[in-house]
């Protein structure tokens, strides 16, 4: 197979990767906001949602962005101005850094990082710094409470997330996300390779823990205490307005998309289709058209997963902070440890 990567000069590849990275963050964010926040939520609540801007309100997001860009950029008098301005950028940058390791096709990837899982989980928690900084620098009591809650919560849920992924890493025998995709699609269930071997089948517990941790990591209901609009007005975002609020807003949904990408890579087979369908033996044998189809498959899986995330968000009430910590430390972490032990034993035994 002739790899596309060889035909394009290095600068072209870099440009494509940068554009692809921006696209991979902003496109899902926009889709999620329109599809789920505007439409699905409205239908769940027996209303139509935006209908005026464009057909079925599809241009509503542009209108909203335009509105936010026009608004005044308010910096509170007592705020630590430099850090206050920096905070939303940290959150968004961590999202961009996160998408870097996600493979979208045999060649459609940004970096082929051998410790990709490790990197993704490490970078995923950088956004906490942004949130904590935002809460502290706003010089607002609600923001401070929100920021501290976010820090406590994200640290608590980082651990089950890492532990949930360990099971996948043991099964795939690699920390490279591309290799994890290959391991799932070239695998077979007791010799039958019709659907490959998506890890969600064996790692179902891990998948559940991962999705719960993602929900908490994204501060979505039922884990949205850092924002908790009925208690803390808007948590760490209370003082932000205009463009900076927009960055937080995009960051929230973009991160949801990226974590859904990672979840679909780890548990649902990623960009791949079962290799046996076309007789591919290894990654090198995969046809070039998968670079086009792969991203579409990824987007579909991402939308399914974010759909579930948003579905839960719109129908559940929220936990209290201490209940959430108890849930993380007393339920999720022991469960994920047990999951690792069982996976390791079975891996050796079979």
């Amino acid at each position, binding site marked *: 197979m002739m790899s596309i990567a060889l035909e394009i000069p290095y600068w072209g590849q870099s440009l494509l990767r940068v554009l692809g990275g921006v696209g991979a963050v902003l496109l899902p964010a926009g889709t999620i906001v329109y599809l789920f926040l505007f439409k699905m939520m409205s239908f769940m609540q027996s209303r139509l949602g935006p209908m005026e801007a464009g057909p079925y309100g599809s241009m509503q997001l542009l209108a909203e962005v335009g509105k936010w860009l026009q608004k005044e950029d308010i910096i509170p008098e007592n705020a630590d101005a430099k850090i206050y301005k920096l905070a939303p950028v940290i959150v968004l940058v961590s999202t961009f850094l996160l998408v870097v390791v996600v493979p979208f096709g045999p060649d459609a990837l940004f970096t082929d990082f051998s410790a990709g899982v490790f990197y993704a989980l490490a970078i995923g928690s950088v956004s906490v710094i942004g949130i904590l900084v935002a809460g502290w620098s706003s010089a607002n009591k609600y923001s401070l409470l929100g920021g501290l809650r976010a820090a406590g919560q994200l640290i608590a849920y980082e651990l089950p997330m890492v532990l949930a992924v360990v099971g996948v890493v043991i099964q795939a025998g690699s920390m490279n996300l591309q290799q994890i995709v290959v391991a799932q699609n070239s695998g077979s269930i007791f010799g039958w390779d019709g659907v490959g071997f998506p890890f969600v089948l064996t790692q179902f517990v891990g998948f559940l823990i991962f999705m719960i941790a993602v929900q908490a990591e994204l501060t979505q209901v*039922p884990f949205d205490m850092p924002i908790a609009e009925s208690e803390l007005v808007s948590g760490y975002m209370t003082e932000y307005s205009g463009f900076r609020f927009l960055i937080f807003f995009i960051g929230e949904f973009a991160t949801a998309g990226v974590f859904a990408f990672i979840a679909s890579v780890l548990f649902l087979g990623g960009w791949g289709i079962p290799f046996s369908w076309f007789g591919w033996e290894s990654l090198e044998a995969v046809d070039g058209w998968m670079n086009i189809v792969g991203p579409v498959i990824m987007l579909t899986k991402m939308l399914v997963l974010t759909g579930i995330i948003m579905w839960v968000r719109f129908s559940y009430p929220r936990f209290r*902070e201490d209940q959430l910590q108890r849930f993380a430390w007393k339920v999720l972490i022991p469960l994920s440890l047990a999951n690792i032990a069982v996976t390791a034993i079975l891996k050796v035994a079979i």
Partner: protein
Amino acid sequence: MTMLSERQQMSYIASQAADARLNVELETEGMTLNIGPQHPATHGTLRIIARLDGEQVVWAEPSAGYMHRGYEKLTEVRTFPQVTALINRIDWLGSFANEVPFILAAEQLMDIEAPPRAQHIRTILFELSRIANVSLFLGDLGVQMGAVTPVFMAFRDREYVLNLIEGATGGRFHPNFDRIGGLKDDLPKGWLDETRQVMKKLRNFCDEIEDLLFGNEIFQSRTRGIGVIPADVARQYGLSGANLRASGVDWDLRRDQSLPLAYDKVDFRVWTHPDGDSWARCWIRLQEVREATKIVDQLIETLPPGPVMTKVPRIIKVPEGEAWVSTENPLGEMGYYVVSKGDLGPFRVKIRSASFNNISITPWVLKGVYVPDIITILASLYFILGDIDR
């Protein structure tokens, strides 16, 4: 601090002293959090001043009065029929229920009674305003805990009830329909059939809310055992309505007193709950909406024929005297103490509104809870700002 009672001052000083000791040991300092008057959770302009240690409330105090409109004073410069337009706005979600006790007090002074049909229709509208009020509470409960969907279901089904009230009275929010001696009009044609269907819809709504919200484990963990008010404390603070019944006190003015309303002609159950926590208060209200739909159904079946207005003079002068009438309103006991000197208008009206007493327990019940629980406890106590600051 000058406004506080001695007991509250003592508790404040004790909390400050405890704070100071803690600060010496751990070098932390408490934080005073002003929840309100502008805050998304206070539905109005209630201000709660809370001293926090971390996220735990050391001391909390409600500060009412940001929406005081002086209704007690305003009633003194109005004639008796004009007052109903004013007192509609006290509990703005269940407006019709505000009119009834005042009109009953005036009727008591004039020694007249509304005809049976008017009494029936009054009771029906009274229960409809209870449904309109409490169904919004059931939806709002979700929003206070972060679930956004139930409130839209509540608004959807409350709309049917508001349409009924509008159909009968002409006003969705402020009917101003009750008159001394009866009602302004009879019910319109077809209204009873529509009411029967709407009551079915509302029972479905109650089932939906019970499935979506009350059956949710997170909701239960947020409300069960939170903000427990024992029966004797509830009595001491003068709680009424569902808040009192949730503490296990079997007390309902609809059943326990005989007023010229049609409650003695219907069969309904007064629900109580032994726990006294936030869950109990929410659950009692859910059951009360169900009971209210049943009451309305029974009253429709037994609606007597006849006039809706008794003979009253064209210009109403209420004879000299004093009367106290209170009814079981959606928020609790609401009463009017009317003093008349034989003029066109009342000499003095004292309004006893339920929310003001219900909210007075907050310093007691909020002590030691976490910040998120402030919101759930306030939500479960259920107050309307207009009902606190008359």
